């Protein structure tokens, strides 16, 4: 699920109301405040609304959050080896890769949401052990692109590790890249064009 807090009352956000991202429509969105109170829209909040509420509360810079059960985030959440940038698509990550939230169980309480936000810290992404990931950004477009790239990097790390230790990008090398997306709309246009095939 993806959530966004632009153009809504302070301390509130919009997300999808307990429906698969594949089945979401405009009519199946919900607005909640950071305490989980219902504000508007469809009436069934996602089970794990505290992921969004607690991260938004802790990180005023964050405009959008995605939470997935990505195969590649999940695998690196349970391995002793970290998912580290070995391609510039990982330039939004630190050289030692995203942290792992170790707690087991769904993030259905504010206590767990706060623990997750703490594990995320100031970073762009956190892996959730035996669960998936949470990815944040300054816009929906950025979060969606980061989430797809985190999955690509996970796959590429997996492939590379079968050959031995790959050559990762160092912290110094990562600084060579502009941290911001140079062309935020190019990736978005590409992904939207793929949706049109399906629609």
């Amino acid at each position: 699920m993806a959530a966004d807090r632009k153009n809504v009352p302070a301390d509130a956000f919009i997300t999808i109301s307990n429906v698969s991202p594949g089945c979401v429509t405009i009519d199946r969105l919900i607005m909640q405040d950071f305490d989980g109170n219902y504000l508007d829209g469809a009436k069934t909040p996602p089970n794990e609304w505290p992921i969004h509420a607690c991260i938004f509360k802790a990180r005023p810079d964050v405009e959008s959050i995605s939470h997935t059960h990505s195969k590649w985030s999940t695998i690196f959440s349970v391995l002793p080896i970290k998912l580290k940038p070995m391609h510039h698509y990982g330039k939004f990550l630190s050289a030692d890769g995203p942290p792992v939230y170790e707690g087991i169980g769904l993030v259905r309480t504010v206590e767990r949401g706060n623990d997750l936000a703490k594990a995320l810290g100031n970073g762009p992404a956190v892996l959730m052990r035996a669960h998936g990931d949470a990815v944040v950004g300054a816009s929906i477009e950025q979060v969606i692109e980061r989430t797809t790239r985190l999955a690509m990097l996970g796959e590429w790390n997996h492939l590379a590790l079968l050959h031995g230790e790959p050559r990762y990008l160092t912290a110094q090398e990562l600084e060579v890249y502009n941290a911001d997306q140079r062309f935020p709309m190019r990736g978005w246009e590409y992904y939207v064009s793929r949706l049109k095939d399906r629609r």
Partner: protein
Amino acid sequence: MISTPCNGPAFDSGELKELKQKLVDGCHILDREGITDGFGHVSVRVPGSETFLTIAGVSPRCATLERLIMLDFDGRYLGGEKSPPYEWPIHACIMRARPEVMSVCHTHSKWSSLFSVVKGGLRPLHMYAKFLPAAGPPIYPASGLIGTVERGQALAAALKDSAAVLLRAHGDAVVGASLEQAILRTIQLAFLGELAHMAVAHGEPLYMSEEELATFSAEPAFPARPWEYYLSRVRERRAP
């Protein structure tokens, strides 16, 4: 202000119509084959000039005749859409260094990205690799995008007289004597990368030696056959 190319046809010249369509087709083929995503670009030299056509800051998948740009080898705008790809020096610097190169593809191919950071190189183990040396393509080791002429020249130096170069933590650049050849080589490089990756998982595969590679003709025997095939796959998608 559009500067005039020192020689060769202008961007809007009817002479370039066929070449532009081929460029758009080549972009759609790389997308269809799963090699490019939101990024990557293809260029083609305008015959008889120091200018080239490429896509104007758009995913290869979304390329159209209206989203092409013409640049000279110094990056000067000569026509078309106004947003050059950030990494235009890849094309300009390679074409300047290699007068026989008519087309350059740059992708973030999964397989090229992989072999750019693992030990051993992407060594030929199938005859599709006949355009590569036995040691596999060279690797351009620097991190960072090719946003300057200096980096473009360093990339061209790493490519040297090869058909392909891997860009570390980035992807590849592949050249050809025609757009069709550059596209086909890019697809074959990805195919070889996947094959080599799978083979290495079984232990050390039997690679092809320099002498064995030399038994194959360097030139494609039937260049039009794979182009027709890949184009037919794109047309399936374009059909309503």
